[in-house]
């Protein structure tokens, strides 16, 4: 039987990135994917003829530019077109437009509150300071604070020096920031409900926490630490949907001789005498390699792909306790034309950015209450975009595609498991909310894909439907991600590694976990490091 140098379980973008680097270093690498298509949560599918759905992730910013460039993703077909700004519709028919440029934002905030308009600069500066700190660590393995190995000590020193660079006050701010709620943080800058509601969205996306839950300020940072071409915090559309990211990574991987097998549901990692030897599929087929890398989330990895007896009890316990609560759903909609929104002209720049319908932190917190009670939010937070206003490749000319990310939506309902009827009722709740602000929206719907955490788990393999492979709370970050002992991409068995979003620096279409894991693997194999370092001083 053929023996590979390494097998990567899962063709999510991190698995593909990891595989690409292993292959680039000269290894013979196989990627096994359960679905008939690749990409995981970074996927584009044509579920309605002529319309491309960016089914899960829908906008791109976190993707590390060092990786994108190094793996020649542009040559392999990836284009990211930036967009700027956003809008939140208010119940009284007005809106807040977060225009693409500073001066219009200033004027627009001033329309609601002059003081808030002036505070906005301070807000942006303060968030950017924290962003710059965390960006330094995206392309590196978190140091183990309990280890005395020179490499960890060096890492800790870098850590400490990054902190000292912030200055005394900056350090104190950082500690507050990492532990604070996004609501409390925003209250320190703004007085206007709709402004706070608009700015808070990034603090809760993908997180089973409310705007007043401690830890959500950090989640905001997670959405600000990316960039498009050096514009920090900017987001863009991957042309053709987020599947283009995975496709480009796959093409890059294949250009180094890598092999991808779809419809390959890995059932079990084969362990012999304390080290991994390969994997077995659900259909019984086996593949052999001395290095096995999992792109799956930590729960799925350790609790579903191993015989419990092969793992230390400690790891099983930690994997069980890992926090990975699903909180999000998604609607992908084919539209017969461009919907109109109250108070916004069709040619307004506000049509080309993210749109939201909740105008106060109070309403956001109530939306979270519903999740706690085991039902979807009656009045949900949505992050809605019409990619076809920027990307002409997503639908036929004159037609449009809409993506709506929805929060909150529980992994199971208080009333029992998800049913197709419940799923449709959830979808209807969202459509009704949008229709409140868009009179012709409902009439334009040609097709609608509704995804609850149940579908996300079932189809994408995300445990509980958690979009980030585990929550981004401080207890599960850096050297605690996913949990101590596995935070440097190494699993508990020789030859076993993790490379998915459940590892540092976490979820999102970032590719950094995949690349960082590859660096560790190559180090263990005593091969040269082919992973790019971060660009300095950004």
């Amino acid at each position: 039987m053929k023996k590979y140098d390494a097998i990567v379980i899962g063709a999510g973008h991190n698995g593909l990135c990891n595989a690409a680097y292993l292959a680039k270093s000269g290894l013979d690498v196989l990627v096994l994917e359960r679905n008939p298509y690749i990409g995981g949560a970074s996927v584009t599918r044509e579920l309605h003829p002529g319309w491309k759905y960016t089914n899960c992730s829908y906008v791109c910013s976190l993707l590390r530019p060092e990786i994108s460039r190094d793996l020649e993703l542009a040559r392999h077909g990836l284009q990211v077109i930036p967009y700027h700004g956003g809008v939140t519709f208010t119940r009284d028919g007005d809106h807040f437009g977060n225009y693409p440029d500073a001066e219009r934002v200033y004027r627009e905030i001033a329309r609601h509150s002059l003081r808030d308009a002036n505070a906005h600069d301070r807000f942006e500066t303060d968030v950017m300071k924290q962003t710059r700190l965390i960006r330094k660590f995206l392309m590196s393995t978190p140091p183990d604070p309990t280890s005395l190995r020179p490499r960890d000590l060096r890492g800790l020193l870098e850590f400490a020096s990054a902190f000292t660079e912030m200055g005394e006050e900056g350090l104190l701010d950082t500690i507050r920031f990492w532990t604070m709620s996004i609501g409390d943080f925003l209250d320190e800058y703004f007085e206007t409900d709709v402004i706070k509601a608009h700015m808070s969205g990034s603090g809760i996306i993908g997180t089973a926490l409310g705007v007043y839950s401690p830890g959500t300020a950090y989640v905001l940072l997670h959405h600000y630490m990316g960039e498009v071409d050096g514009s920090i915090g900017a987001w863009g559309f991957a042309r053709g949907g987020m599947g283009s990211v995975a496709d480009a990574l796959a093409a890059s991987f294949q250009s180094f001789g890598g092999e991808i097998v779809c419809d390959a549901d890995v059932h079990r990692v084969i362990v012999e005498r304390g080290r991994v030897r390969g994997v077995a599929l659900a259909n019984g087929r086996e593949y052999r390699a001395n290095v096995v890398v999992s792109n799956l989330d930590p729960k799925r990895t350790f609790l579903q792909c191993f015989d419990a007896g092969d793992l230390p009890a400690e790891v099983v316990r930690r994997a069980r306790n890992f926090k990975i609560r699903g909180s999000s759903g998604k609607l992908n909609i084919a539209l017969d034309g461009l919907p109109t929104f109250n108070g916004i002209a069709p040619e307004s720049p506000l049509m080309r950015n993210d749109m939201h319908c909740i105008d106060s932190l109070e309403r956001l917190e109530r939306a979270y209450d519903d999740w706690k009670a085991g039902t979807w939010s009656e009045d949900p937070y949505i992050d809605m975009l019409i990619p076809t206003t920027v990307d002409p490749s997503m639908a036929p000319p004159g037609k449009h595609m809409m993506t709506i990310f929805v929060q909150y939506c529980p992994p199971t309902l208080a009333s029992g498991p998800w049913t197709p009827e419940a799923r449709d009722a959830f979808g209807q709740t969202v459509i009704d909310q949008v229709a409140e602000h868009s009179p012709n929206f409902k009439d334009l719907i040609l097709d609608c894909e509704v995804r609850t955490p149940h579908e996300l788990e079932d189809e994408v393999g995300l445990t509980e439907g958690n979009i980030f492979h585990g929550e981004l709370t401080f207890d599960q970050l850096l050297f605690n991600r996913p949990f101590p002992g596995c935070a440097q991409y190494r699993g508990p068995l020789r030859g076993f590694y993790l490379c998915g979003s459940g590892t540092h620096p976490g979820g999102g279409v970032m590719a950094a976990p995949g690349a960082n894991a590859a660096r560790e693997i190559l180090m263990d194999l005593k091969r040269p490091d082919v992973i790019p370092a971060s660009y300095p001083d950004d």
Partner: protein
Amino acid sequence: MKPHSEVRLLDTPFGSRVRDACEVHQWEDWKGYLTAAAYEDVELEYFAVRNATGVFDLSPMTKYRITGPDAQAFLNRVMTRNVRRLAPGRVGYTVWCNDAGMVLDDGTLFHLAEGEYRLCAQERCLDWLQWSALGLDVAIADETADVAALAVQGPTSCATLRAMGLDGLERLKPFGIARFPFDGGELLVSRTGFTGDLGYELWMAPDHAEALWDSLFDAGRDRLIRPMGTAALELARIEAGFIQAGVDFVPAEQVLRHGRGRSPFELGLGWLVDFGKGHFTGRNALLKEKENGSRYRFVRLDVDGNKPAEESFILDKSANVVGHVTSAAWCASAKRNLALASLEMPWGRPEDDLFAEIYYSREQRWTRLETRCTVMRGPAWDPPRRRQTPPADF
């Protein structure tokens, strides 16, 4: 029509006239307002300021009206200089700092009438001012859009304005304020400017703006008046040695990297800091700096040769980097090759041997120079007419 917030660039109150006058269509975004970088020719515009009259539309400048029983106490709390010494009818150049003694911005403070002030600045700081006003009986209003403003600068500016009907303007001293009836409203004139020359700034309600522009250009035609854009103004202000927020220093609230801010001492503005007046924001930090020494020195350098030292490193004798240039230009009136530079302490003493690393290209060939610089004592351009009262007619 687009909603106000959605318009990418707003017209200033002089918009119709500015658009007409701007032949080269070199536009800039200044605080969200359409602003001419040049109207016809930067050289002509610069020489208008030094030889006749140049007119600059400074309406986008941030303006706050500060009133109330505690207005003076409030301003004395936020400004480094002693505001009590600023008599009604006078204008003072000033800086304000954060608690760490880092400069937030510089600007001019107008004492319009007893207890009534206008603060004119590049950066917006309403939020900060309001935090600083807690506990004081003071009202702070943003009047940026409510005041149309023109800078009228140059040797024939006084004569031009008098020809426009501002009788007695010649008696107005530098940094003084005068009021004149105009077009059924009140025109406020201050003898201030950003060019280092004889000059005035006119302040008026926006509905009189077009009338003001028209009368001004009518009155000035024979005295060779010209509109000028930001490019010409930039040359004039560098020649005069004035610093600009966001160019020569990073306003403290925008600093991302710890330590990149500058104190007043580090910008050569120590003369604006009055420790004797009682408490003000940043005082403790600045006192400490005074005791322990500053990190940087801001200097005006006269650079040998005629190649502007734009974005240059400043080197010592052994080619170590000891600072960098923040603004530079060949100054046609002063006949100096001027650079404003921020140097690490202790560099910038008169006896220091300093060199600017200059790159320039001629017909595709790049040359690198290490050119000697001399630390200047005073400003490069400071003609007597700037202060002379009454000014001559030209």
